[in-house]
């Protein structure tokens, strides 16, 4: 009973928020167009949060995703401005994400540096690199090819509703993450590492290699999100991804309050992402000051996590 109460607390909160916004914003909140807008606004965060879940399953986390997103946008934009074709810019940016993620994984699993310290370090490294190669300037206008930014504006018509490509891309990434974590033995092993790393190692799991791969996937996801962001605003600047990291971690934590034993699950992370996105959208429409919005979002995350841990029966320390 307490279990289900604990698990459903966050969902009840989410439902309350939805009801509140529907009542407060009649005719503007609960419309197809607004909901589609929300999913588009959320698509970058969803990608980062879903791939962040992969490392958080192992009790690790990655602070560098935000600056990696910025860096990947910059890398693509700089290559575009030098006249390289779109596909080359995309591949190069994703390659940077993969290499950056592998570097994180190398620091954490091979050198054994705490994820907090290692990824805090690479956060500044990636961010510095982004400033360096962009000269600290925003790259925009004619430097960004229409084929790239057009992607973000286009979509597919389903029943006369235009579903944006960004939303579909995010859904695809979520589906892949869900499959990898829930349906493959790779995912089983990651959860085992999160459950007890030492025991997993002694049971024959290649802990080092798996952590390396997981961090690489998270880096790749961050780079993808950075490209989506750059396409959506048709420009790239070296700080545009920085807000993603805290929101992504918050979304995974919100999700963890809903799972049975407090472990991260991609689908619950998605609910966390939706909560943050809906709140942001609703409060903006209510013309709540953006600073107050930040305070509210922070308090909501804390209260969800606190409710979940207070109602755990065996909490002693």
């Amino acid at each position: 009973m307490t279990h289900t109460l604990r698990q459903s607390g966050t969902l009840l909160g989410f439902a309350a928020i939805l009801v509140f916004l529907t009542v407060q914003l009649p005719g503007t909140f609960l419309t197809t167009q607004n909901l589609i807008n929300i999913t588009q606004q959320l698509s970058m965060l969803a990608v980062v949060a879903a791939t962040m879940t992969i490392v958080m399953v192992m009790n690790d986390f990655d602070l560098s995703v935000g600056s990696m997103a910025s860096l990947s946008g910059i890398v693509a934009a700089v290559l575009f401005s030098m006249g390289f074709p779109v596909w080359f810019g995309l591949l190069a940016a994703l390659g940077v994400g993969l290499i950056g993620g592998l570097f994180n994984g190398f620091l954490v699993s091979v050198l054994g540096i705490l994820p907090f310290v290692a990824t805090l370090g690479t956060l500044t490294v990636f961010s510095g690199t982004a400033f360096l190669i962009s000269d600290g300037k925003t790259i925009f206008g004619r430097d960004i090819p229409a084929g790239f930014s057009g992607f973000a504006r286009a979509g597919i018509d389903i029943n006369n509703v235009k579903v944006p490509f960004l939303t579909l891309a995010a859904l695809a990434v979520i589906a892949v993450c869900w499959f990898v974590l829930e349906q493959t033995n790779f995912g089983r092993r990651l959860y085992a590492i999160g459950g007890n790393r030492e025991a997993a190692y002694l049971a024959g799991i290649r802990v080092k290699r798996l952590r390396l791969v997981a961090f690489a996937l998270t880096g790749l996801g961050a780079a993808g999100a950075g490209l989506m962001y750059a396409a959506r605003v048709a420009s790239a600047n070296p700080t545009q991804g920085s807000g993603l990291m805290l929101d992504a971690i918050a979304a995974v934590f919100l999700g963890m309050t809903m799972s049975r034993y407090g472990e991260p699950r991609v689908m619950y992370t998605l609910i966390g992402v939706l909560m943050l996105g809906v709140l942001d959208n609703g409060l903006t429409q209510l013309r709540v000051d953006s600073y107050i919005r930040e305070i509210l979002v922070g308090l909501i995350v804390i209260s969800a996590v606190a409710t979940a841990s207070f109602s755990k029966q065996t909490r002693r320390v």
Partner: protein
Amino acid sequence: MNHLEFRNICKSYGSAKALDGVDLSLRGGQVHALMGENGAGKSTLIKVLAGVVHADALTAKVDGIEITLTSAQAAQRVGFRFIHQELNIVPQVSVAENMLLGRTFPRRFGLAVDWRKVNARAQDALAFLGADHINVGAPAGDLNTGDRMLMKIAAAFVFDPVTDERAVLYVLDEPTAALTSAESELLFDVIGRLAATGAAVLYVSHRIDEVLRICDSVTVLRDGQLVSSGPTSETNKAQIIRDMTGRDVADAYPTAAAAPRPNLIVGMAGVSAGPLSDITFELRAGEVIGIAGLANAGQSILLETFMGLNPITSGHAQLQGGALPRSPEHAWKRGVAYLPKERRSEGLMLNMSIRSNIALPHLTGVQASVRRERQMAETLGRQMRLKCEHLDQPVAQLSGGNQQKVLFARALHGLPDLVLLDEPTRGVDVGAKYDIYCTVREASSKGCAVLMTSSDLPELLGMCDRILVLQDGRQAHMLDCDGLSSSDLLSYFYAPKAA
């Protein structure tokens, strides 16, 4: 002499009765054993005495005066002292700090901690235990398992002028589970001295031989109810087992079904690896070799060598004609199964399901198959007589014995060629122990070679064909178990290697 009376102790968790009207009567100067299988209510009873769990009903009297046990502080005030089974230590701080943890540290000018006094009090307590070889200034994490246990025990004897009334009751919760025979002897001596101070001693243990030897009386619980209580002189081993399990358990060890087969599984010749040296033995299919010695003579490290955790530096070692595995992953693939010593920290993912815990080393292919995992867990669980509600239950909810069975199920899937068992029955109750012995026997009769360590000498003698004795990492003796007694074996721990 104190007289402690506890009447009608009841405690329910929801509809489950953990304790159902249990009476317990303890006399100062006497050692009283509390026995029962896991889940019988021993832990709950101890928690009630410690004031950590509030009984639904309880009348407690010390020398006829009623007392209340509503908090840990209240229990401390009336003079109850507890020594717990789990070795929870803070590894980075000193032994002395660990021993005084939770007490008021002596101060200078009421402000700064008086470290000299802290160390002196810890030193005195250790000296009382006869364990003054432990350096109170060293980080507790540097101590080996036996010394950690001694440290925890000594912590109960630290003199505290502020809160200390005289102790009237010492409760020892399975203190010998992690100790070797020699260390246990040290502890028995201490227990005698505790009783001599006039305090009552409540001694919780799974080891019946130990209880019969050092205890004056014994109380047995089963399913939360009192089954028997009386002097140890009026009972015996078979009776206690019957009381604990409610049935007759063939007390001894299941007999070996077949003689070892000729095919060689492990061959070691003059191997040195890390702290180990002179390791020379041959292990054949179906054979069980025990590894024995004083605490930390290298028993666990010898097992770890076969998991690739302790690379060999010289000598010739082979596993089925090949070199030893390079890593745990490699070892499992080569048919080596391992049951680590620390069930909770090295063996299990406590929050994960029984099914996942069993299947972990045996996952193959890319896509996960819940169906295959469930089949595997079901078959092995039945074979192990695993008691659980369902296979998706997290292992944290199981008793120690059943958790150990989960690890056995993991190890024995697919019938490995070599099974490494590090203290396979530690903290496991009698009934589950017997199941585990049968499993080991069955596996070895099917051709598994077994290497096992144990600090329980009768267990080694009952289960093994031969016993390898280590002294400081060096192989000193290889003994045939036929006709060997526990005391013979113990004397070989000290006897120098024959030239």
